[in-house]
């Protein structure tokens, strides 16, 4: 079953961070996942977490160059959530063998592996960022995440000129790199 054109458009929208597409996919699939999680020992928060993670996995899939979704978004999202939730339950020691397996699922193990690697990298970066302390964190976020110009940042952070701000930024960046790679290399 090839994903139809509406679904293709939605995925394309998702890959381009189009909020309308995100909203549509969210709305169409969240309740299904929520019902699944709630019926299988989960809470509302679990449902939200798992679903959003699946959305990220879908986003990654949509972004990859070799992207081909051979099933409906619904089936894919459900399959991801199902795997994620089973894993989570196992980790929490709440494994429930009553998980219903009546729904159609597609094999997502490979995608999840990639997703998990990305997730780990994200966590390392997040930890590194959070242990930087201010104003380093905000400065780097401003430059690398929000793509603000040096001049702009200098004004916002109260540096006397852009060069000083730039200097400070590089110092922060070096610390961040150190933090990141110490974790990253271990993790690798």
């Amino acid at each position, binding site marked *: 079953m090839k994903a139809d054109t509406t679904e293709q458009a939605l995925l394309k929208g998702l890959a381009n961070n189009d909020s309308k597409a995100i909203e549509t996919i*969210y709305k169409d699939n969240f309740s299904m996942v929520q019902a699944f999680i709630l019926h299988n020992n989960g809470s509302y928060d679990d449902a939200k977490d798992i679903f959003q993670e699946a959305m990220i996995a879908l*986003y990654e899939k949509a972004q990859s160059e070799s992207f081909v979704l051979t099933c409906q978004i619904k089936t894919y999202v459900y399959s991801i959530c199902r795997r994620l939730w089973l894993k989570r339950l196992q980790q929490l020691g709440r494994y429930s063998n009553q998980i219903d397996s009546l729904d159609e699922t597609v094999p997502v193990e490979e995608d999840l592996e990639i997703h998990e690697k990305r997730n780990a990298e994200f966590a390392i970066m997040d930890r590194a960022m959070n242990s930087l302390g201010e104003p380093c964190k905000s400065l780097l976020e401003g430059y690398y*995440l929000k793509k603000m110009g040096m001049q702009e940042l200098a004004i916002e952070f109260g540096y006397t000129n852009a060069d000083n701000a730039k200097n400070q930024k590089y110092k922060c960046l070096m610390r961040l790199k150190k933090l990141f790679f110490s974790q990253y290399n271990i993790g690798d």
Partner: protein
Amino acid sequence: MDDILLLEAIERYLSGDMDAAERTYFETLRKNTPEIDQMVVEHSMFLHQMDIYSVHRNLKQSLQATHAKLLERGEVNEGGELTTKGRVIQLWNKYKRVTAIAASVGGIIALVISGLAIYFSPVVNGSQIEQLSKAIEVIKKNQQYQGTLINEVKSKIPENAKLISGGSGFLIDPKGYIITNAHVLKGSGAVVVNSKGQEFNATIANIDLEKDLAILKINDQDYEPLKSLPYSIRRANTDLGEQIFTLGYPRNDIVYGEGYLSARTGYNSDSLTYQVQISANPGNSGGPVFNNNGEVIGVLSTRQAQAEGVTFAVKSKNIFRMVDELSNSDTSLEKIKLPTHSTLKGVERKLQITRLEDCVFYVKAYRK
């Protein structure tokens, strides 16, 4: 400080901010200094990680925002009970495949069961059993056909009468008593036609719907009674496997057919009838079933719709009962004398038929 300058250079190099000369210089430097080369690779990778991190963070934020938005609009639920509607839809989505399969299986089973029920139901008049009387259209056509072929014979059917059904019948008394099936006589009157195409008016003398037999009396001046009947009517039951033959009018001409007695009882173990293996068609109803000795052993009546050649014949002993009933109820009638002696024993089949032909009639029932 050097590190910072280097980092800045790398970043500018990676983002493509260097001009051509600077770039060439940096590339040479990179080529000659493995440490710098390593730093470039590392930083490029790090920036890529930063990009991914940034994208993911933004996505997470927009997912959170979307969630909050949908929550506010009530398009997703959180906390409290899920609405019944949502749950039903969920269940439906979840199980629609199974439901569809179950429904179709159920449907098929229902059809099979009703099919079996119809198949085994004892309703004799159902579609399983076809009475071998003919439909009106067929007769109408036949009548026209006859009209063109035998012009000299004037129809005895009243002009404004409507033909209802047709079948066969045979003499049980040379005075003009004919036995046929009750279901053949659907209208208000009947004519009988002999094998030569002569029509005679007839009245119903006795009819028994349960036995599906009727006795007709020819009341016609044109009728010349035969001296005697060549066949007899068998009082006892007949054995399985007995060779049998029949004469009847499934079409305008008399038609011969042969077979054997296949069961002592009829449809659904009906003890009034036999099952015979013989090819019979609408119009054969009421026709005689003879054995090789020229004894009438039954009256053809119905056939099983789905099975080829499975035909049922009313046992001949019922003819005796019919005649007895008739003479008991109406003493004014002349006594019917059933033939008791067959003169056809050991006679060649062709000769048998020649002598039997005159005694088998085409029965047409009409309504005025």
